[in-house]
């Protein structure tokens, strides 16, 4: 039974769990992708990627635990992912990081849309905001403009 502070009455969590599974998939991809990002950055510039990867790991683990507690088998990481473009330079790495964060942002906005539980909205807001703030930095590093978005994930 959902404990929804926003709606009237209870809802089932089917749609929310499905959205969380998609968010988890995006977090798996981000964790994997930041390995590629870090490898393409100069050693002195890898700290930001390392921090971002750690953030995605934390969110990934939180979501996996949540789904398991609901008796939903959390999807695991894929064996490999196809890069959207060759990552051969720090600029490429920043552009890939933008892709990773944008993917996470979109997934978490969807969770917000589908959430029945207030606690899930709290989780989604935190994950969404963290991803968008990181994306701003990566867009700047990649030379993309504008670096901010009016409506990230929509």
């Amino acid at each position: 039974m959902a404990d929804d502070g926003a709606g009237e009455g209870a809802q089932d969590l089917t749609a929310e769990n499905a959205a969380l599974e998609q968010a988890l998939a995006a977090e798996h991809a981000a964790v994997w992708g930041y390995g590629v990002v870090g490898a393409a950055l100069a050693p002195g510039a890898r700290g930001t990627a390392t921090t971002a990867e750690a953030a995605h790991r934390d969110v990934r683990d939180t979501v996996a635990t949540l789904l398991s507690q609901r008796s939903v088998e959390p999807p695991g990481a894929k064996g490999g992912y196809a890069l959207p473009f060759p990552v051969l330079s720090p600029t490429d790495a920043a552009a890939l990081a933008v892709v990773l964060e944008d993917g996470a942002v979109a997934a978490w906005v969807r969770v917000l849309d589908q959430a029945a539980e207030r606690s899930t909205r709290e989780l989604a807001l935190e994950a969404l905001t963290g991803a968008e703030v990181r994306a701003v930095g990566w867009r700047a590093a990649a030379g993309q403009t504008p670096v901010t978005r009016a409506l990230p994930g929509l």
Partner: protein
Amino acid sequence: MSPLPSPGSRGFSRRTLLAASAAGLALAAAACTSSPPDERERVTGEQADQLLGQVGVQETLVAAYTAAGAADPALAGEVAELAAQATEQLERLRQAAPGATPSSSSPGTPASPAEARSWLREQVSTAATSHAAAALNQSGARAALLGSISAGLRGQDGLLA
């Protein structure tokens, strides 16, 4: 090899959000293809009132960009894109809350040109916090819209730092 998740593959459309009205209607349009119309799109009177309030919050922020730019013309040019994004956010909020009417709330003005940036940043942060809090009390497309706007403003906040 699996493709990396694409932001465009989420089955979540602008039309979906535009369909989310705070007019108190239980909308027929489903938010996403994965679920039928449900409680998420039902708007209580309290939620509708709060969404109208968020329109006012955003109007104040748009006015703050104007005030900051007037105080520091150099800053006005620098933040023109951010101001345009704030206006876009306001338009989307008004679409989601069709009963909203323009308010006359003023954010005040920066104490001095030198303080315009920090003053504006505070205004942006305040609006982001307000929209985030409101998102937790909403559901469905309204929660998604408010959360997205809040995150976008957090990005602006970081850029203004």
